[in-house]
Every structure is written in structure tokens, then in C-alpha cells.
């Protein structure tokens, strides 16, 4: 067994640990061994948990309690024991491990070192991320209220307008239309069976009824499989060329996540892959989009569709996220990298997914032809190719997803 450092057996997840630092310094400061060890251990652990939460690991009070209990069973003066006691109780996924290691070094070496900040720089992002927000509400609230009929026909026009060419006021109005969008969910047959009027015989319920009737099987009870929602995965391109549409697409994604939080996953693609499902679960669309914007480090950057798609399939798709799902790629297919890679990854995606939908906002323009290299490479593996440039197109997209 490795005895080279305080933090041994660490696998590939502890590249940043500097062995001499971990653990030693804090005990020198706290002087745990001398007097009142318990008090100091609790303080130290609480302080560490605070550092860890700051680094983005959700180390709640119950987890901290578990860490204290774990230390109680181990040698408190052995830094590697403390390291493992914390890692086993405070972390809840592989993403937490790097942050944990960094925070551990920072706290127990006494250095208030740079912790990895949550990715993304809000001040830049917000401007880019929320074009629909610009001049929110001002445009149509301060003027006179148009009568209902005029408003309704204006809605109708707005539904078909390209979101890239809207004024601030129109965008604000469109935001409200998004709230009314209720994406339908595709369904799939499931294994779990529920009591039903028809279907195969349900032995348990039949016999239970018979027992109640004194052992006479008077009526057969049935059960049948209930369909379950099929997973929907949205991959939204947030690169520079998609800037005019990214906000609307994320709003669409938010509506989809809100409709089926358990079976919808949203990732943004650009130069890297970011999972924003968690952020988009917030009820309020604007707050959800701000949270999503902060999580996305590559707003309006370049596009490496093939590579990012590969990252998605490696980390998520092949494990299960894309299996049997309706995968919706929202992108203009503007690929800087090699289109061979994109074609290969799209073929791989198609083998995993139930259906692949490609949303290209430019498709809504008259005379559009999918000539970009990326589009050409992707189309052979796409089941449905739709536009995504206006409210009406989003409604159509929602229909395509639910019937895919």
C-alpha cells in the first residue's frame, strides 16, 4: 500500500495534493493533542466545511456531523484518516472530488489558497446571456394598453417573427409567451405494471380479493404497463454564431425542464460541455437563466461541436443519459473542428438515442439550405430537422419532440 504521503490511495483524483502540507499545519495551529481535542476538532471541521461549501461542494450539516462521527472512529492525528473521513462523508459525486482536494489543501495547510471558483464570470455572461431581458417590461408597460383584439393579433404576428430581429419590447412580450408554452412529453412503454381494468392477470390482487370472498375467485383482477415519460436531452449551442437565439433556446429548455424535471436534461455546447439542468430547475425563468448563465463558461465563444458532442457521449450519453432518449441538438452546425469527428459522433448518438432532432434557427429563413460542413456531416444521422427561430417554430418543435 502506498505510504508515500498523507493522502495515499488517492487514485487519479488528487493531483493537487501537496503531501507535506496536508493536515500538518492545522494541527500545529490548533494544538489538538494537548488540551480539549474535541472542541478543536469540531471547530476545525466546521471551518473546513465552510471552506468546502465556498468551493461549491454541498456539505450540509448532516454531512458534517457524519464526518465528525467518522473521525471519531479513526485516528484524529493521522491526516490521511481525516482526509478520507471527510471525503467519504462530505462528497457526493466525482465532480466534488477535485474541489474537495483543493479545499483540503487550502484549509489544512493554513493557506487561504485560491479555491476554484464556480466557473463562469457573471458580469460578462449576463450581458450576453439575456438579450431578451434588455429593457424588460419598459417598452409595453408605460404606454397605453392596446385593446385585447389588437394585442391578440400582435401576438400572432410576434409568434412568427424571427427572435433575432426583435426589439426589446417585443422580446419582453415574447418572454411572457414562453411562460404559456407547455412542452408535451414523449412517452415510452415501461416495465412497471399498475392495476388496470384490462391487461394481464394480477395474481396478487386477484387472490387478495378471493381471500376476502372466502376463497372464491369471483373476479379476475388485471394489471398493465403504464407508459412513462421518455427522457429528453437538449444540447444548446451557446457559441458566438448562435448568440441571437441562445437565450430563446434556453427559455425553451427551461420550459421543458419545468414541465418534466425528472426526465429532462439540458447541456450547453460551445467550446466545452456544461450541464445546466440543475440551474434551469429554478421556477422563475429569469432567475434560472441567470443561474444558467453563471454556470456556462463559454458563452459566445467558438464551436467545437464534434469534440463537445464526444465529451457528452463519453461522460453522459453512453452511460445512460442518451440511451432511449429524444436528443435535441440546437445549433447552426457551424463547426470549426473536423467534420469527420462530428459525423462519427452523430452516428454514435443516433445508435444510442431513440430519436435525434436537430434545431437550426437558420432553417426558418427563406431559401436556407444546409450547406455548412457541420450540417452536412450531421444530417445523415438526424431524424427530424426543424427550425427554431420563432415562437411558432418552438411550438412546432415541442410537437416534434413529443411525437418523436
Amino acid at each position, binding site marked *: *500500500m*502506498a505510504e508515500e504521503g498523507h493522502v*495515499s*490511495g*488517492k*487514485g*487519479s*483524483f488528487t493531483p493537487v495534493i501537496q503531501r507535506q502540507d496536508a493536515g500538518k499545519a492545522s494541527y500545529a495551529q490548533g494544538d489538538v493533542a494537548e488540551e480539549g481535542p474535541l472542541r478543536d476538532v469540531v471547530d476545525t471541521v466546521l471551518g473546513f466545511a465552510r471552506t468546502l461549501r465556498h468551493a461549491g461542494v*454541498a456539505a*450540509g450539516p*448532516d*454531512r458534517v456531523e*457524519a464526518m465528525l*462521527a*467518522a473521525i471519531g*472512529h*479513526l*485516528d484524529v492525528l493521522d491526516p*490521511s*484518516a481525516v482526509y*478520507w*473521513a471527510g*471525503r*467519504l*462523508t462530505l*462528497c*457526493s*459525486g*466525482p465532480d466534488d*472530488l477535485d474541489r474537495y482536494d483543493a479545499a483540503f489543501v487550502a484549509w489544512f495547510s493554513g493557506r487561504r489558497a485560491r479555491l476554484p471558483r464556480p466557473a463562469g464570470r457573471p458580469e460578462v455572461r449576463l450581458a450576453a446571456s439575456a438579450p431578451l431581458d434588455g429593457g424588460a417590461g419598459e417598452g409595453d408597460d408605460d404606454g397605453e394598453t392596446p385593446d385585447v383584439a389588437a394585442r391578440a393579433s400582435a401576438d400572432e404576428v410576434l409568434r412568427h417573427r424571427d427572435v433575432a430581429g426583435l426589439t426589446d419590447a417585443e422580446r419582453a412580450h415574447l418572454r411572457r409567451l414562453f411562460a404559456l408554452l407547455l412542452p408535451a412529453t414523449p412517452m415510452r412503454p*415501461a*416495465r*412497471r*405494471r399498475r392495476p388496470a381494468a384490462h391487461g394481464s392477470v394480477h*395474481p*396478487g390482487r*386477484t*387472490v*387478495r380479493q*378471493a*381471500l376476502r370472498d*372466502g*376463497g372464491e*375467485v369471483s373476479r379476475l383482477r388485471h394489471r398493465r404497463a403504464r407508459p*412513462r415519460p421518455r427522457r429528453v436531452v437538449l444540447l444548446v449551442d451557446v457559441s458566438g454564431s448562435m448568440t441571437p437565439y441562445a437565450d430563446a433556446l434556453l427559455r425553451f429548455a427551461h420550459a421543458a425542464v419545468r414541465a418534466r424535471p*425528472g426526465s429532462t436534461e439540458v447541456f450547453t455546447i460551445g467550446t466545452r460541455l456544461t450541464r445546466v439542468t440543475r440551474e434551469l430547475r429554478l421556477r422563475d425563468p429569469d432567475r434560472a437563466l441567470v443561474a444558467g448563465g453563471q454556470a456556462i463558461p463559454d458563452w459566445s465563444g467558438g464551436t467545437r461541436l464534434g469534440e463537445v458532442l464526444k465529451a457528452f457521449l*463519453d461522460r453522459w450519453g*453512453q*452511460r*445512460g*443519459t442518451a*440511451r432511449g432518449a429524444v436528443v435535441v441538438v440546437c445549433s447552426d452546425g457551424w463547426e470549426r473542428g473536423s467534420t469527420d469527428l462530428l459525423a462519427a459522433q452523430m452516428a454514435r448518438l443516433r445508435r444510442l438515442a431513440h430519436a435525434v432532432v436537430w434545431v437550426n434557427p437558420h432553417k426558418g429563413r427563406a431559401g436556407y439550405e444546409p450547406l455548412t460542413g457541420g450540417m452536412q456531416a450531421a444530417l445523415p444521422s438526424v431524424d427530424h430537422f426543424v427550425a427554431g427561430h420563432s415562437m411558432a417554430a418552438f411550438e412546432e418543435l415541442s410537437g416534434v419532440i413529443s411525437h418523436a
Partner: protein
Amino acid sequence: MLHLVSQTTSGLPADPDALAAALEGTGYLPDQGLATAAYLALVMHRPLFLEGEAGVGKTALAHALAQITGRPIYRLQCYEGLEASQALYDWDFGRQLLHLRAAEAAHAADDPARLEASLYDRRFLLARPLLQALEDSPSVLLIDEVDRADDEFEAFLLEVLSDFTISIPELGTVRAETPPLVVLTSNRTREVHDALKRRCLYHWLAHPDFDREVAILRRRLPEVTEQLARQVARATANLRTLDLLKPPGIAEAMDWATALHTLGARELDPDLAARTLGAVLKYREDTERVRGLPAEALTGG
């Protein structure tokens, strides 16, 4: 034959190192993190949630733990649509009905209350793994690939794992005298709910380093030559760096070494390696890619 090295009075290893030594006695070589995790799971009565790539020894750990503690192991393989009646318990309806008929024939049906009580007797109850593990305490409960079950099932699990009791309305509550040592494994095909993870110790099981992998191969496959074991471990480690669709785990390395040994190899030569690649790579794209590489790409480093 027992492998327990140093024990406390309760029969549990005294510290993580003792547990590691005991595990090594069964042929399972844990690193310090895993030994600490298993030790804490034992003494804190907390379920151990193991995540990691397929084939890194998650399931094998549960079996090794059962072996060193001398406890029976109950395994629940999860899959979509898994129901409480397959995980907790079920009534044997057929036998209940027969019992009722027999009672009628013997004119024993005069006292309905007694008849009903006799219908819901323990002998008509079919215990499934979760109930078995609680009844046969202390035991090891392996809940394999929990990420494959659906979220409804997680709710059941949460209830059982929080206080290790199962209540059967017709019979009463079953409580484990000693909570079972629970090992949950996940291949991470789906994010398991936080509420479940919060009750567990979380451990990410990574691929072993080179020396440990050689040691594991040598221990599990004593007939394989040291030279071959080292070369297979080296080649497997190299394959893991190639960004394949499915990087090989320890299970695949063991399969590969076995395949090579069966073909009479004492060391890894490029020709044999190419012929046995199917034991270690499971995708056509991966096989083609590796075949196209020079031999040093596998054996070097």
C-alpha cells in the same frame, strides 16, 4: 479458515489497516481510501455508496467483505421496473389459496378470525433480498447497480436504509438486530438522488495504479507468469489513456491475462495481443483503433 488479523471484541477489524489486511487475505487488494470507507461503513452502520467505472471491483468488494466478516451476503440486482414485491417481500398467493381450500375441506373455517390470521403467517411470506438481509442479521446486503432502478424504487430504499426496518401490515415490523453492512454500487448511468446519497458514505473507485493492478493479477491468477501479468497491466494502463469508448477495467485485464495464459503465452507478444484483443476491448471502433497503433503504444511506458 479465517483471515481476520486483529479484531475487537465485536468481531470487527480494529482499524482500517486491519480490515485491509483481512481483505488482502481473500485476494481483494484495497487501497487506503477503500479500506477506510469499508471500515467506517462497518463501524458507523452507514451504507457504502460505491461509484466508478464498470469492472473496478465494486461488486467484488461486497463479496470480500462478506467473506472476512463471515456474514451471509444478499444481493439485489436493480433494474428498471423493480418493485417492492421483488425487493422486500411478497405473499405466496397460491399457497394461501390452497391453505384456505384445505381449511374449508377440514371444516376449520368456522372461526374466520383465526383462519385469517393463519393465512398471513410467516410461512406464506416470500422474503426477498432486503427482508432476507434484515432477518438474517448480521449480514451483508449488496444493492447492485442502483442507478438502473427507477426513482420510485429509490424511495423504498430510502425508507429501508434509514432505520433498517420493514413493516409488513399483516405481520408487523421486521427490524435487524444488527444493521446489515450495505454496499450500494452505481455505474453512474444516472444521477442517484441526493437524499439517498446523504445517508451513505460516498466512495469513487478509480482504476488501480500499475503496482496494485499487477498485484491483483498475480493474486487472482497465480498461474499467470509475473512477466505476463506486468505486461498485461502495462498494456491495460496504456489502453486507458487512449480515450476509448470503453476503457478496460480490472475485470477485463483479468480476462485478457486468462485468455493469453490459456493460449500458452508466457509474455505478451504483439501477435497474440492482437488475437486476444476481444477479451479486453468491447467495441469494434476501439479494436480497430488499437489494431492500427504500433505495438509500442501498448507495451511501452
